[in-house]
Structures are given as structure tokens and as C-alpha cells.
């Protein structure tokens, strides 16, 4: 049986002004899996996520969440249907406390008891956030800010979690922790679409991956397949293989 | 047959070639503008309106450098025009110094004022320049009212038509002189914005951070643009003082500052011709409305209308009136050729 994918992008096109950034992207994110989107800077990875969340105008194709079209919906409606993002550069609200940051993550939820439940779950997952819930987010370390950013996204009880470059600018040890967290989240049932430059680490955790090059998908396969693909090795894993 | 039939074929290509040069277009425009009062039936009051257009064009041209090319707003530019007016008047009438020196001083003093204010206000983010100029204008307005020995306060300061090297100008020749100054400044601005400075300013207007990344020293160029705009305002003031031969503090009100913004936006942002078209729009509209039955009797109708027009232009025609001719041309060629050759759009793309 082929189950309907949770998130499905069909021939998605998007442009900034007159520059076409996405030239027909097809991606499927099955429930309960980690799907990765890899590629160099400027390939259109972040734009793909922005197209899903409605921050970039989709000029062609369709985006479906469990069979329902979310193409061209206003951002807040996409979010309230269960798409949560941990954006590139973490983007925690630096002047707000950790707790306030988490609360804003649950903005789309009306059910207060659910918010409470989610908060308990996030605290269980990231004990450091509980310890520092009164601290101003801007004073957290990079790794802690990444945890906050992911925890904030989890506060929305998302159906799918979009992670944009979670390892960006973090020390290698912290990067390993972050990828472990991603794996743990997934084993608890989270569906994740991750955009990364760190191809090696990502392919190790991803069930399936796509490789994007200037607006086109050029390669796809399971994490293991791509790890062993010679052209992927050459282009994306080169310096990283130990 | 007369000579012109043999003369024209050789002249036309030359003219076409020359027309490509900005200075030639501006000088031709100046010649036409200077000749306008000679049209039969031109009344003295219409000639005065023309004088208003020209003096205001000079101020608008400077403002265009600021608003159009560096993307900064000043809300107190009228004060710099006023300073130019009083300084030039005082130097000629009270100190008995020659007129050219007065014009120079009327340009330099506001230029320096602009440099000093800009040094402080332009370092700050946001709309600080707008507020700082508004504050300075308010302070200068008080000087205009209170510094009686310098401005004569509300009694008003009277002056004469210019006198240069023994030649006494009259109304007509003062007008021609103003046109010449305007044309010279248009050429100056053209060269300024087409030199590296202008390109830096244009980059800055579209994205400050991007320009910074390109290594453009924003501060230096912003400061330059602001000082140029205040200097031009001063020259405009000197022209005003010696064409209208009168100044009092009520003339230099905040509405005049707003009209400079209207001129640049309605005429066409970041366009030299646009500044002049916009100045003509601002000055001429009240006069044109006077002819419209019903509206003409309402005081201030044109002011309200210019507020409506500026919003409509920004919403629906952000390129301004300067594009009307070329857009009509495009529309015509599109209609005649059909939709086979889509024309390049001149619309602004959202940032």
C-alpha cells in the first residue's frame, strides 16, 4: 500500500521579482520520516521552505498537506494547519525570555491545556530550556538557541516540522547533539523536512533525501544510497568523510 | 522654394545626435522656458507664475538628489530656502556687496548648515533626518521672526532686482537669469548622478545593506546628497528674494517643505526632468484649478488635491508624470503592433 505523503510538492515554481528561484520541484515527505533537502548555497533550499510556509509567492505547481492544498495560503493559515518552522539562523526573539519564545511558538493553538502539555514535552526534551525559562533568549549559547528554536516549533503540535540549517554556525560537538535530537524527535513520531549544508550528518539520519541545484532537483534517493553515490561523495561529502 | 529645404536634411541628423546629450536637451529646454514670457498675450501675472516655477524647480532639483537618489526625507527644507533668501537679501541690501557674492553665500551657508546637521542626524537610523530637519526648521522659523535686525520679522524684508557689474536687471532679465541657473544646476546634477557618486546613491536607495556590502560608504554619500540639497535650497531662496523682492516668515512654512516632496514624487522620483515637471505641477495647479468652476472659489483646494495626487501616484504610478509621454508612446506601439512584442515594464519591483 502506498500511503498518501504528509507533505507533497508538485512542480512547485517560485520567483523573487523576475528571478525564478524554483523551477519545478517535486518532493514527498511521508509521515514519520526525516526527509532532507541538500544543495549548495543559493540552490533554492530555503526558498522551498518559504514556498511551503507562504513567505514566498508560489507561481506554479501545488503544495498539499495530507491531500489538502495549502498552495498560496497566507502564512498564518499554513502554520495553523500544522506546519512549524525552525528558521535559518534560529531567529529566536532575542529580547524575549525563553518561556515567552516558547509561548509564541504555540500562538496558533487555542487549546490551553494542549499548550501546557506541549510545554511539558518540550521541557522534557530540552531540560536546559526549563532551567533557563526566565532567561533572555539573546543570552543563550548558539546550541541552546537552536534548541529553543526547535522547541518553539514543537510548541505548535506540528504535523510536519521544517528545519532550516539547524547545524549552521555551531561547534562540531553541538552539531552532533543537534542531529541526535533530530533523530530522537523522529523516533517519537515527528515528521521532519530538513534543509542542510552538512550533507554527511544529514544523510546519516535522513530516510530520504533530495539534492537541489539552482532551482532543479538533480538527484534523489534514500540516505544510504546518496551516501554511497560517487557524484554526491565528490560534490557534497568531499572534505567531510573521516 | 527657400533655403530651409536644403538646410534641414543636414540639420536633422545633427540635432538627433545632439539630443542624445543631456546638456543639449537641458539647454534647449532652458531656451524654450526663457522664451515663454515672450508669447503674445502672456500677462505679467503669468510671468510671475513662471518665475515661481523656476525658483521652485531649483529647490526641487536639490531635493530630488536627497529624496530620489539617497532615499532620505527632509521635512524642513523650507527653512534652508528661507536662509538663502534672507542671507542674499541682507548681503546685497544691508552690506552693499555684489549680487553674485550674495548668491554664493546663499548657497554656501545652507550647505554648511546641511553638513553640520547631516553629520549628526544621518548617523542615526530610520527617519531621524526628517525629524531633525523639522526641528531645525522650527528653530530657524523662530530666528526669522525674532532676529529683527536680520530679517525685519513680520514687517517683511524688501529687496531689488539683481545688479551685476553695473547692469541692472528687470523682471524679464531676472527670469532669464534664473532659467540659466536652473539649466546649469540640471547639468550639474546630471553629471553628479552619472558619476560614481550617483551610482552609489542609486544602489543605496534600493538596498542600504547591499550597498554597504558593495563597499559604498553610505554615510559620505548621504551627507553629500543632503548638503547638495540644502545648498540648492539656498540658491532657490536667493532667486526668490531677487525675483519677488520680498520675504517674510510666513512664506517659509511647513507646507512649502511638503510641496517639495510632492514635486519630486509626482514629477517622477529619481528624475531630473521629474523635479522640474513636479515643481510646475505644484506651482501651476492652484492656478489651473482657479479656472475650474466650483473648485476655483474654494481656498486650498489645490493643496488638498496635491495630497490626493501624491498618494494616487505612489499607489498606481510610482514612476511619476515624467513617464507619461513614454508610456503613452509604448501604449500606442503596443496597440498598433498587437501584443506580439511585450514592452519592457517600467514598474517598480517591490523590494
Amino acid at each position: 500500500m502506498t500511503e498518501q505523503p504528509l507533505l507533497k510538492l508538485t512542480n512547485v515554481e517560485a520567483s523573487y521579482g523576475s528571478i525564478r528561484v524554483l523551477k519545478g520541484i517535486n518532493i514527498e515527505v511521508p509521515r514519520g520520516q526525516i526527509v532532507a533537502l541538500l544543495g549548495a548555497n543559493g540552490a533554492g533550499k530555503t526558498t522551498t521552505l518559504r514556498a511551503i510556509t507562504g513567505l514566498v509567492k508560489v507561481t506554479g505547481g501545488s503544495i498539499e498537506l495530507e491531500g489538502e492544498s495549502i498552495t498560496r495560503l497566507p502564512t498564518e493559515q499554513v502554520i495553523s494547519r500544522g506546519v512549524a518552522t525552525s528558521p535559518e539562523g534560529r531567529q529566536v526573539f532575542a529580547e524575549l525570555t525563553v518561556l515567552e519564545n516558547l509561548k509564541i511558538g504555540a500562538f496558533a493553538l487555542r487549546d490551553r491545556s494542549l499548550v501546557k502539555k506541549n510545554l511539558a514535552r518540550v521541557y522534557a526534551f530540552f531540560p536546559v530550556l526549563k532551567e533557563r525559562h526566565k532567561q533572555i533568549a539573546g543570552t543563550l549559547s548558539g546550541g541552546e538557541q537552536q534548541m529553543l528554536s526547535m522547541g518553539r516549533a514543537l510548541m505548535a503540535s506540528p504535523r510536519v516540522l521544517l528545519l532550516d540549517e539547524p547545524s549552521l554556525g555551531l561547534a562540531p560537538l553541538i552539531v552532533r547533539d543537534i542531529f541526535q535530537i533530530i533523530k530522537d524527535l523522529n523516533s517519537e513520531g515527528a515528521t521532519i523536512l530538513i534543509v542542510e549544508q552538512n550533507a554527511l550528518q544529514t544523510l546519516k539520519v535522513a530516510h530520504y533525501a533530495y539534492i537541489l541545484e539552482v532551482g532543479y532537483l538533480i538527484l534523489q534517493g534514500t540516505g544510504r544510497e546518496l551516501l554511497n553515490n560517487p557524484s554526491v561523495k565528490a560534490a557534497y561529502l568531499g572534505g567531510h568523510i573521516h | 522654394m527657400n533655403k530651409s529645404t536644403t538646410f534641414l536634411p543636414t540639420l536633422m541628423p545633427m540635432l538627433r545626435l545632439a539630443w542624445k546629450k543631456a546638456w543639449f536637451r537641458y539647454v534647449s529646454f532652458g531656451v524654450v522656458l526663457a522664451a515663454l514670457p515672450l508669447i503674445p498675450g502672456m500677462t505679467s501675472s503669468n510671468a510671475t507664475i513662471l518665475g515661481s516655477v523656476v525658483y521652485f524647480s531649483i529647490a526641487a532639483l536639490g531635493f530630488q538628489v536627497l529624496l530620489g537618489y539617497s532615499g532620505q526625507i527632509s521635512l524642513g527644507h523650507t527653512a534652508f530656502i528661507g536662509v538663502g533668501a534672507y542671507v542674499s537679501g541682507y548681503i546685497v541690501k544691508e552690506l552693499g556687496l555684489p549680487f553674485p557674492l550674495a548668491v554664493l553665500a546663499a548657497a554656501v551657508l545652507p550647505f554648511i548648515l546641511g553638513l553640520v546637521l547631516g553629520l549628526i542626524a544621518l548617523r542615526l537610523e530610520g527617519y531621524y533626518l526628517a525629524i531633525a530637519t523639522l526641528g531645525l526648521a522650527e528653530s530657524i522659523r523662530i530666528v526669522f521672526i525674532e532676529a529683527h535686525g536680520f530679517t525685519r520679522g513680520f514687517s517683511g524684508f524688501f529687496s531689488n532686482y539683481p545688479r551685476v557689474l553695473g547692469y541692472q536687471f528687470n523682471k524679464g532679465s531676472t527670469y532669464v537669469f534664473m532659467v540659466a541657473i536652473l539649466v546649469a544646476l540640471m547639468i550639474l546634477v546630471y553629471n553628479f548622478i552619472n558619476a560614481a557618486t550617483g551610482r552609489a546613491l542609486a544602489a543605496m536607495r534600493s538596498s542600504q545593506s547591499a550597498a554597504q556590502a558593495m563597499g559604498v560608504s553610505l554615510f559620505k554619500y548621504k551627507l553629500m546628497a543632503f548638503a547638495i540639497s540644502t545648498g540648492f535650497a539656498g540658491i532657490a531662496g536667493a532667486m526668490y528674494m531677487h525675483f519677488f523682492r520680498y520675504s517674510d516668515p510666513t512664506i517659509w512654512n511647513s507646507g512649502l517643505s511638503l510641496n517639495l516632496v510632492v514635486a519630486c514624487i509626482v514629477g517622477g522620483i529619481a528624475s531630473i526632468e521629474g523635479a522640474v515637471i513636479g515643481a510646475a505641477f505644484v506651482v501651476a495647479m492652484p492656478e489651473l484649478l482657479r479656472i475650474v468652476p466650483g473648485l476655483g472659489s474654494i481656498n486650498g483646494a489645490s493643496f488638498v488635491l496635491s495630497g490626493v495626487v501624491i498618494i494616487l501616484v505612489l499607489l498606481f504610478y510610482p514612476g511619476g508624470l515624467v513617464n507619461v509621454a513614454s508610456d503613452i508612446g509604448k501604449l500606442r506601439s503596443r496597440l498598433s503592433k498587437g501584443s506580439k512584442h511585450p514592452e519592457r515594464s517600467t514598474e517598480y519591483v517591490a523590494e
Partner: protein
Amino acid sequence: MQIFFQNVIGGIEAGSMYALAALGLVLIYRTAKMSNFAQGTIGMFNAYIAYFVLARTNLPLPAVAILSVIVAFVVGALIELVIMRRASSTIPMGKPIMTLGLIIIFQGLAPMIFGPVPFQFPRFVQKPALDIAGVKMLPNTLVIISVTIILVAILFYVLQNTRLGLAVRVTAANETTARLMGVPTRAVSLGAWSVATALGALSAIMVAPLTSVTVTMMETIHLNSFIAAILGGFSTFHGPVVGAFILGVANNIISYYISSKWVVAILYTCILAFTIFKPQGLFGKAFVKKV
């Protein structure tokens, strides 16, 4: 000493009006990322409307004041919906320039509709001045100051402690990320325009009895509220309010002890000089401008 306190109280009264207006400015500046130069002019227009409602009906003054604040609230929403929202693709600086267009429109319309004669606007409380240890204070002054303090307190409570306030603060901090959290940032901008315009109108109604209703009645208040925001810093909501009270008191003290003629020039020069040393204002943090 009594004269000194007299001046301080007068300064706090003026500062109250600056504070309300400055809070309106900073709300729009932070959430809609633009300067609203027309706030004072729209307030002036509202004061005219309030005057005529008062003159033509039997409604009590507080009711008229509340009514005109509601009208301003709606006007603010309309400006956002009809003009600003459609202006997303205009030139850089287009939106603040549009508010200059609004100034021109309302400034031109006011004398056309209401005539050139200034109108005397009644005080909220007509009772004679109280004498507190030699310092005279009109009950009306007390009303103005307390209404301001109560309103500012309510607004800050909402900003700091409610879901709505959190939405406003995150929109101000980073609009894109706020949208990614599901915050309807357009609705936040709409609300900011409404509340800001209402605050501007309230400020105008408070100043009306002191200056009478004229086209230029709000010019000083408007400029001073901007300068108060610069003094306090645009990056916080409380900075401009504190700046407003400092400005109000400083204005009165300089005016009395140094020169009433040159007070404006002295004050503005001092604040301009202050910004040389602290460009972000008293409570400001460095601005990080986005691309």
C-alpha cells in the same frame, strides 16, 4: 521652589500629551516599520470634529472625547486597509511619504470644512485651581495626567502580559519569524494603526482646551512626540514615554529660567547634541537594519 514645582507640573501635563502621541508613533514604527508623519494632523482633524459634536449636541464632554477616540480608531484602520496595505509594491520611502500626503489632505480640508476661526474647547473639569502647598494645579491638569498614566499602564500591561501583547512584541522584533509562528502580522499592523491614531486623537483633545482648536494646534505636540521618541529611543515602547515626560519638564524649566523665546531652539539643539553621544536614545539598543 513653588515656582519650580509649578513648572514641573506643567511639564508633566505637556509631557502626558507628548507621551500618548509618542506611544502611537512607536507602535506604528515598530510593527508596520514606517513613520507616520500624519498622526498629529489627523488628531487635529479629530479635535475639530469633537468641537462640532460638542457644539451641536447635548452630549457631555467625556462622551464626546470617547466618541472621537473611537472615530480615530476607525480612521486609523481605514488608512491601513485602504492605503498602506495596498502600497507594498511602491517605491522605498513610499509609505511614509503617503502619510505626508495625508497631512496635506487633512490640513487643507480642515479650514475648508470648519472655517479659519479658532475654536475654544472646554476643559474636562471646569473647577478652579487647587492650592497644594503654594503650588497651583487645575483639576483639569490632574485629569490629563491621570488619564495618561492609566492608559499607558493599561497599554504596557497588555503588551507585557497578554497573548495579544506578545504578538505585537514579536511582530516588532522580527516580522518574518512572527509570521512563521502563526502571528497574523497584518492584523497586528492594522491594530497598531488603529490604536496609534486613537492615541493621537486623545492627545489632541487634551491639548485643545489649552491652545484652542486650530489647524496648527498639533504641530508642536507632534514634533515633540517624535523628538521624545528619539530621546527615549525607538527600540523600546517605554523609552518614548519616559522621553516625553523629560522633554515636557525640560521645556518648561528652560522656558522659565533661561529664555521663553529661544526655548525650542535650545531644547532641540541639546537633544541633537545628546544623540551624538547616544544615537539610540536613552533606552535604545543598536538598530540592526535588515536587507
